[in-house]
């Protein structure tokens, strides 16, 4: 069963007992899932259970070498979608991506369900 | 001595830096 990885995360992040929830505080850091993909098409969904008004989230896809003590999308090894303004990030460069209607904030927030799809070339 | 360093603040103990949301970003369209 795919869940959040206890041994592949920034130590300051808190995981729930069933490892399906993660909570962070202060600066951005990252947790990866227990399972990764290498080829083909894959999709996952997450629900934002709780999101205080002054907090932010970046979520997406990351390779093994992505820095865990930085937000997802910080380096060349990860790609993310930000809750604030719905910006997408890769290599620390943000670009407009989505503008869901949310009073005063844009992007996504508590209660939203987010879907992430990746399409990788099939192996020869 | 602190007068020689503009905007310098003398500390008695360590302070933890509070990162901004955009702390790690190079560009933000």
């Amino acid at each position, binding site marked *: 069963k795919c869940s959040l990885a206890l041994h592949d995360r920034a130590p300051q992040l808190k995981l729930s007992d069933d490892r399906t929830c993660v909570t962070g505080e202060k600066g951005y850091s990252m947790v990866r899932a227990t399972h990764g993909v290498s080829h083909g098409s894959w999709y996952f969904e997450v629900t934002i259970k709780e999101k205080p008004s002054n907090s932010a989230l970046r979520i997406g896809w990351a390779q093994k070498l992505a*820095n865990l*003590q930085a937000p997802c999308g910080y380096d060349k090894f990860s790609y993310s979608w930000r809750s604030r303004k719905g910006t997408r990030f890769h290599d620390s460069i943000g670009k407009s991506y989505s503008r869901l209607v949310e009073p005063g904030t844009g992007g996504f927030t508590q209660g939203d369900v987010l879907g992430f799809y990746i399409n990788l070339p099939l192996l020869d | *001595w602190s007068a020689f*360093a503009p905007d310098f603040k003398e*500390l*008695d*103990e*360590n302070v933890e830096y509070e*990162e901004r949301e955009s702390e*790690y970003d190079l560009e933000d369209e």
Partner: protein
Amino acid sequence: DTCSSTKYRHLKDFSKSALVVKRSPIHGRGLYTLVDLNQSQMIIEYSGEIIRNELCDRREKFYESKGIGCYMFRIDEFEVIDATTKGNQARFINHSCEPNCISRVLVIGGHKHIVIFAQRAISRGEELTYDYKFPKEDVKIKCLCKSSKCRRYLN
């Protein structure tokens, strides 16, 4: 341990009264002791802003672009003390290849602190120095310590 915690509690007051910043023959300003110090005595904490390791390079580039000298001290692989804009007198301690002080990371109350200790007995009026232990790099920084064991370069 308990002994270190007790000594640490008095460190602030001690370092403010026993140390002074003056011009240094090594480089710019240095930190000098006004009293005799015993070997292994706790002298001063290197205090500043605790930042995560990943912010180091960016801050260093920023300071260089502004012509500001960078004062940083690594705690461990995750965190660094940046004393460039916020800190105390410890930021003025110069490097020497033959130092009279050493640095240690103490954990007190769950928090990590960089503390400077006397490596040997230090006489009143001496400048305090420690070995910066910079990693080796291609672009060299000349060492100005003029000690007999000088390694010529900081890195």
